[in-house]
């Protein structure tokens, strides 16, 4: 796991970053006292958790952000002579977003949700009563959390579990919520299959997954790193991967090492299935390598010790994507948003 310890010198945290990665953003801790005075306490807390990677994956970050925004909306009162639809976004919402982005670059799901939220606010008539508007926004957030996260998770896990056959060996990389849900669901439906977990020794999420799968009685083969990957992917029937985002060109943004596993699997003739909620899809941006959209691990950001958090899996290494709306090739979900 990640220790919440950061270099003491905050100011030039970026000074050690090698030149060829100097364009890549990095999360940073901001003293709560240094934050903008308009930042809501709930957002402050979320920002801190993001900076320290207490909230790590895109969906938990989205969830926490939306719940914090809920608090922001609840405590919002339109100043005299203003209307919510004109005042809320520039004067209240934007400082929150700026702060969060400063703590850690926004994930694609947050970007999508915030864009939707802003569009929602802009649609209000200038004369909409404040209470009515607030109520509608709160309801919309609840709807988003329910439909795009909870329900999506359920549907994806169900569809993906159905694709597991009796006697399969499923290989996965690290830990991803959807993959765990899928495997446990398939087991509970009575299927017998084995799971190979390839872990990232810098995250060790796979170890926790291994224990939880073992507890429901799934046979687990655990490999602590990418050593011996070629024979392992060749022996698997399917590879299930989760990710942070899928770009308009169908490539997957996911924890570093995912692309290696997908590539090795595809070359060994093993199917690579990506599980991803549509809220994580970005239909505007295109990424062909890992150096376009990425983040530097703030604990390893010098020449002595450097790490990118994500990599980019080209869609040629992806057999199919399972979303809550449809399943298809790497490219088709781009149209599904």
């Amino acid at each position, binding site marked *: 796991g990640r220790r919440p310890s950061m270099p003491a010198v905050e100011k030039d945290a970026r000074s050690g970053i*090698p030149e060829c990665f100097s364009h890549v953003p990095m999360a940073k801790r901001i003293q709560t006292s240094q934050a903008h005075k308009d930042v809501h306490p709930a957002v402050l807390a979320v920002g801190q958790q993001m900076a320290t990677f207490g909230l790590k994956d895109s969906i938990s970050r989205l969830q926490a952000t939306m719940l914090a925004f809920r608090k922001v909306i609840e405590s919002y009162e339109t100043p005299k002579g203003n209307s919510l639809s004109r005042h809320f976004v520039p004067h209240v919402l934007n400082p929150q977003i700026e702060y969060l982005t400063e703590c850690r670059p926004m994930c694609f799901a947050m970007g999508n949700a915030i864009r939707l939220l802003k569009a929602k606010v802009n649609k209000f008539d200038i004369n909409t009563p404040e209470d009515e508007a607030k109520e509608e926004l709160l309801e919309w957030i609840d709807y988003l959390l329910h439909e795009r996260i909870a329900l999506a998770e359920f549907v994806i896990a169900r569809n993906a579990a159905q694709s597991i056959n009796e006697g399969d060996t499923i290989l996965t990389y690290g830990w991803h919520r959807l993959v765990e849900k899928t495997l446990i669901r398939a087991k509970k439906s009575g299927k017998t299959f084995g799971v190979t977990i390839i872990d990232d020794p810098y995250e060790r999420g796979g170890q926790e997954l291994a224990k939880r799968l073992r507890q429901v009685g799934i046979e687990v083969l*655990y*490999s602590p790193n990418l050593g*011996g990957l*070629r024979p392992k992917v060749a022996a698997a029937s399917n590879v299930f991967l989760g990710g942070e985002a899928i770009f308009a060109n169908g490539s997957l943004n996911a924890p570093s090492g995912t692309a290696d596993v997908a590539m090795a699997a595809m070359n060994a003739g093993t199917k690579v299935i990506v599980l991803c909620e549509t809220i994580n899809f970005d239909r505007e941006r295109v990424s062909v390598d890992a150096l376009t959209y990425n983040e530097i691990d703030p604990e390893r950001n010098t020449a002595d010790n*450097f790490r990118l958090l994500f990599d980019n899996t080209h869609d040629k290494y992806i057999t199919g994507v399972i979303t809550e709306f449809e399943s298809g090739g790497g490219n088709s979900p781009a149209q599904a948003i």
Partner: protein
Amino acid sequence: MAPSQATHTPSLEKLVKSLKGQSLEASIEALIFLLKRRQVKGDECAQATAHILRQVVAKARWQDVDQLLSQIQSAGSRLARAAPHEPVIGNIVRRVLGLIRDERQATIPIRPSPAVLTSTAGLQVSKSMFNLLSVAEPDGSPMTGGSTPLSQATQPTSVHTLRSEVMDGIEEIMDEIGQADDQIASFADIQIHPGDFVLAYQPSKTVERFLIKAASRRRFTLFIAGLEPFTNGTSDAPYATLRKKLSAAGVNTISLSSNGLMAYIPRVNKVILGAKAVYQNGGLLVDSGCCIAAQVAHEYLKPVIALSPVYKFCPEDPSYDVSRGWLGNPSTYVSYGNGPEVDAIVVENTVTDYIPPELVDVYLTNLGPQTRHHIASILADHYKTEDLAFSMQLD
């Protein structure tokens, strides 16, 4: 990684020092002990094997060539069995066996029929042809060859000369092992160009020497990959001396604390790997995780340059164990103190990877850069056909 390196270097030195005072049997046992505990590993295995075989020649009881061959074979196979993941041991044994066979032809007059004489003294090719024909026994042991009875008369003197000739030969092999890294490094500036971004996966001594040599002639940037996650910034940084030497020469190094390498490969121009062994099909035995470096490079059409001295070229095909990777101790990764749920999980910590030949572009040896197609002739130059079966005697 660092502490184990610190302890196993003196182990080999200590062993070599102890050789003089010890009985042969004790020396062999001492090396077997070190091999089994993996305290002598990698490049050191070659050197250590040569030392022990030299002791066998010096101290073992043997009256003629065939007895010497079988002494070497039995000592050699004990060593090789102690470390089946170090094929280089078998290579050195084969080299020494070949050496003895050469000496037999050179020093012992086999009451020559002129035809045979010309063929042995002639070209390399005809020599191995001769060997091929002279060993018809299917079990591969030339014990009953015709030379022994014929040469008995000359035995007393020839044992002495043979012993010193063979020991000289072994010393030459030891010199070759000692010089190989420098010879490989001398090709560095051909392979590395100014402005390159070079990825080295867990640089071995051979690779380090190569990079330092390259740094003296070229400005490039080095990515070091495959570091253990436990060595964080607070303790001694891994490859500190390498990095210091490179940075003194103006070469930047970036240590990638990363599992995956796909993220970085677009930046990289070439990948440098140190091989633990090269098989006759061109496949490589390498440290665990190294294969992914070769695979990502191959996907992005970046050259993969494998550094390997000739003595690491094995005249055999990779075994099943090799191609799936040798397994190591998993407890560094998972603590069994974690309770019964961990007990039921199969933990595989592979310590070696196998890289198939199609992922390797250049084999850079002490004899210069080679391609896959040259491997057969390198093997033919260095090993005798009779000794190819050596590894099969292991089981």
